[in-house]
């Protein structure tokens, strides 16, 4: 495995660690919103992996891990798509 392949694959281990050690506390902006009483203004959004959880998986660690892995795949596909489009249009 060369270095670049490793650099593409290794983020899954960061996501794995993030799934294991992720904090359940609100983030900085949410904390500010709670402290200043405007947190209720936030509109809940319907999304397939809302809150970094994978539908149909009840285990929280696995759910976050699958959602994170899906995110990495989405990013990879997006950049592969741009690369393919550039190759196609510059030929």
């Amino acid at each position, binding site marked *: 495995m060369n*270095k*670049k392949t490793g*650099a*593409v694959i290794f*983020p*899954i281990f*960061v*996501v794995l*660690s*993030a*799934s294991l*050690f*992720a*904090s*359940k*506390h*609100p*983030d*900085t*902006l949410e*904390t*500010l*919103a709670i*402290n*200043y009483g*405007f947190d209720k*203004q*936030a*509109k*809940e*959004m*319907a*999304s*397939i*992996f*809302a*809150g*970094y959880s994978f539908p149909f998986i009840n285990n929280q660690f696995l759910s*976050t891990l699958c*959602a*994170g892995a*899906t*995110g*990495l795949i*989405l*990013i*990879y596909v*997006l*950049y*592969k798509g*741009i*690369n393919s489009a*550039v*190759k196609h249009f*510059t*030929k």
Partner: protein
Amino acid sequence: MHIPDGFLNSSLSGGLLAGALGMLGFCLNRVLQTATTFANVPAVNNSNISTVLCANELSNNAGKYFQKLTIAALWVFAFQMFNISIQPVTSAHPIGGVFAAVLAGPSAGFLIISSVLTVQSLFFADGGIFSLGANIFNMAFVGSFLSYYIYKALSGKNHHLAIAAACFFSVLAAAISCLIELSISKTVSFTAAFKDMLSLHLIVVLLETVITLALLKAFKNLAKSKNE
């Protein structure tokens, strides 16, 4: 720091979304120019090079450049998922704007952070869709594009200090920009929340600096390859 829908008024969200789209077009254009410029160099120097060779070279160079952008985007996404407790009731994650911009250039940095924010907003409900323009402005424009020029101005003197200064600017300026947007939308008073906003993000600065320095050290060779 991802602003959800409902915190900002519609005119500000719309204006920032339009601005973000314009900036995205500009940065995408610069990134595509960079990808194609590498291959044009031998073509200008040597007119005998066949178009087939140029096309192959273009593909290879563009491929290498996009591989770098892909790596940066994957790492930024992974680290933005890394939410750690910074106070008894608060958590924070790094932005990765300085890492992306130093690794791949300011326009590519903007593009990388914007793409990550878009995926987070569309698929993970992390940041609102109508607030996406504001989030792109705060984290991609201020947190990555502008921060790169802080790094650039100081990198001649000390590389590590330049990264630390850029991270300091990146996180705090993005936080202040977020607070300005909230106060324009009359969600919270700027003067009342200023101190809390800064104190909450000072620990994020430390986290951002440590992770950015570690990642840029790990990707030292990749960072040396040509950018815009």
